[in-house]
């Protein structure tokens, strides 16, 4: 399941030409990417929320060679599932 299939599904469901569906999908993902790059939180009710978490740097060790390496501070996108999606993936346990 990739973006191409996803665009195809959107085109079908919304009765849009593929070109327009592509524009919709790219606009939404670009907008969400921009928000995360700015460090903004994204909250979509029923789906979930995205936030950016900062991690401090630390000194790690390569377990094979025992060489120390410095792990630089980094930021990671975090997704927290929303209620509707959470319920839906838990119906058939």
């Amino acid at each position: 399941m990739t973006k191409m299939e996803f665009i195809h599904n959107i085109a079908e469901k919304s009765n849009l030409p593929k070109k327009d569906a592509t524009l919709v999908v790219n606009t939404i993902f670009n907008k969400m990417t921009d928000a995360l790059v700015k460090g903004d939180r994204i909250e979509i009710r029923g789906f979930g929320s995205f936030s950016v978490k900062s991690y401090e740097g630390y000194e790690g060790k390569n377990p094979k060679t025992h060489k120390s390496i410095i792990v630089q501070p980094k930021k990671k996108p975090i997704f927290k599932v929303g209620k509707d999606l959470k319920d839906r993936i838990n119906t058939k346990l």
Partner: protein
Amino acid sequence: MTKKDLIDSIIKEMSCSRKEAAELVDTFFETIKSKIEQEGKLKISRFGTFEVYRKKERIGRNPKNMKEAQIEARNVVRFKGSSILRNSINK
């Protein structure tokens, strides 16, 4: 950022009404949700991958009163940002 901001950007890009844009955004998220639900995985190039992951049952503890409680097996969604997304966040 909320759905409203996404609807605004769709209105701008597609020059459509607010109602149409709201429907498109809803269809977008409904499709993402049903894909994750049905296929257990959704990979969006340049953005990231959503994956359903099963967590086993375990004994947890209520941090307030330290009472042990059974946490049932459940499914969770994991998201891994694509390397492109992670790189642009760290720039």
